[in-house]
């Protein structure tokens, strides 16, 4: 099986702040990590390869530093990695990103399955996975919590719903976005880390991918951010300390009227 895993390097969410003066993101000193949901996609890609044989290729669209994310994916067991990076991609929204990634996947050509994390922790849109599937005109299943079987050029998977799940069968090639229920990502072994250190990562620029210029970057992004701001802080709360008998009585008195 040839599997492609799409990952994104994101800032560690817990650390992001806005500069109150310039109203822009403070990126310095913020650690970059692999988007948490993509870790599950990587793990599933490696497990599928271990089960069915074949190859797992991990790709990422991002600035040059995204290479560390790709190496981490290799240390978990991916066979090959490809960085799609170019100034021309800067400012891409989900539409432009999906287009660029889809074209890179087109260039890789042979694939049976594409795996993506459910959403990225910086944008939280969950749009790129389906976007890639649409650009490539392949079926997709989102919120996959288990891949039951792959047989006769079809995949049978469990797809989460609000009430439970559905068992869905789709033809290959297909794209799946996965949720954290699907597996427990492994801690990369020493051998894996050493392999990752030495691995050669293919790097593609815009020119390598035969892209339509007006579909890239800012130009190719229908949506753009007109304003960012910190959400209004919640008003300071009444925090009580002391004898639980007293504090609970006070709270119940306050709240009981607001509940009825």
């Amino acid at each position, binding site marked *: 099986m040839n599997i492609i895993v799409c990952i994104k390097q994101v800032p560690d969410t817990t650390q992001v702040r806005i500069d109150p003066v310039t109203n822009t993101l403070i990126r310095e000193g913020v650690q970059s990590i692999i988007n948490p949901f993509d870790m599950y996609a990587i793990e599933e890609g490696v497990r599928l390869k271990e089960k069915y044989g074949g190859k797992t290729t991990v790709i990422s669209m991002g600035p040059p530093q995204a290479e560390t994310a790709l190496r981490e994916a290799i240390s978990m067991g991916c066979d090959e990695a490809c960085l799609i990076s170019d100034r021309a991609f800067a400012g891409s929204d989900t539409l432009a990103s999906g287009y660029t990634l889809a074209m890179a996947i087109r260039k890789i050509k042979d694939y049976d399955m594409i795996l993506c994390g459910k959403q990225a922790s910086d944008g939280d849109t969950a749009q790129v996975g389906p976007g890639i599937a649409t650009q490539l005109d392949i079926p997709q299943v989102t919120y996959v919590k288990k891949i039951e079987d792959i047989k006769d050029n079809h995949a049978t998977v469990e797809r989460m719903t609000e009430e439970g799940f559905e068992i869905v069968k789709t033809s290959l090639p297909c794209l799946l976005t996965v949720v954290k229920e699907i597996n427990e990502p492994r*801690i*990369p*072994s*020493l*051998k894996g*880390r050493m392999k990752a*250190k030495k691995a050669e990562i293919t790097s593609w620029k815009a020119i390598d991918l035969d892209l339509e210029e007006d579909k890239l970057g800012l130009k190719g992004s229908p949506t753009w951010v007109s304003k960012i701001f910190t959400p209004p802080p919640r008003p300071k709360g009444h925090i009580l300390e002391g004898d639980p008998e007293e504090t609970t009585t006070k709270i119940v008195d306050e709240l009981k009227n607001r509940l009825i």
Partner: protein
Amino acid sequence: MDYLLTEEQVMLRDLCRQITDEKIMPIAAELDRTEEFPWGVVKVMADSDIFGTFIEEKYGGMGGGLLELCIATEEFSRGCAGIALAFSATALGTDPIILFGNEEQKEKYLPSIASGKKLAAFAITEPAAGSDASAMQTTAKKDGDHYILNGTKHFITNGGEAEIYTVVAMTSKDRGARGASVFIVDKGTPGFTFGKKEDKLGIRGSATRELIFTDCRIPKENMLGKEGQGFLIAMKTFDMSRPGIGAQALGIAQGAFEAAVKYAKERKQFGKSISSFQGIQFMLADMATQIEAARALIYASARQIDAGRTKNISKDSSMAKLFASDMAMKVTTDAVQIFGGYGYMKEYPVEKYMRDAKITQIYEGTNQIQRNIIALNLVKETTKS
């Protein structure tokens, strides 16, 4: 302090730290309570190639040395010394094979240890033979192509969980220091059973059991080195393993220290964090300095051994173990003190570190024996010059 570790050593340290943070720390308190053996963590260590750290690549290992072993042990012990012992006691049990095993023995046993499939244990201590190892009574009587083992070992770490045991037994009663030999005994060998699991003050995530040999027949091919080399092998093994115990003590101290610093910053009394009081500051400064000194001593003695300077290592490795374990006892006790009343409660992690630290002053040669070793070597050196 920057110990100028190589890239691979840093990679190892980071990996062990990740395993400690994600897999060991979350379950440390529970295993301390239930005394359950940490097979889950053993699997993660195995999958991460950690068991191969101290084994040659030829036998499926990663080709590291004692410093790598110390780095891994230190990181795991920071999470839980008991859980870490599944790994570090395996290293101890494997050392005799690495040092004195022949090619067949190495090929037979090292790969399954390197892959983490099997754990190992070293067995020398007996009820009547602790510091006085020569008082041991377990016998190995030659019988054709076999040796028959009889006797009891106790306080054996990984006892019952390990598959591979390196056992010291008396092959002849009247040859004094040349009377013992070391054998590799597989779990499941007829005549080899286990006694009760000990209920311990600390390192409760580690399994400590009696080994009982009743007419246990083992092939002569399982003897390590030559007959009569038993005490020599044991001493050489301990020379190599002492920095590892030091690393364990160091990890325990580091874990307790980190908890104490964090607590001191958060705890407010008299309107300020207690970390702003000089009394606490001085304690923390002393703890940090002692920890760093122990680390430097352990790394230096490990590096020395890895560089092949194995001639007079007894004194240096003893110093590393002695200093680090005494330091750990002091640092963990101080950590409990910094936590105050909360430090005494099982709800808080620091009393466990104090209980765990105590054993490092006792096993693998009590600190009194360590002082003997150091003194004897000092005398030898001054006598020479």
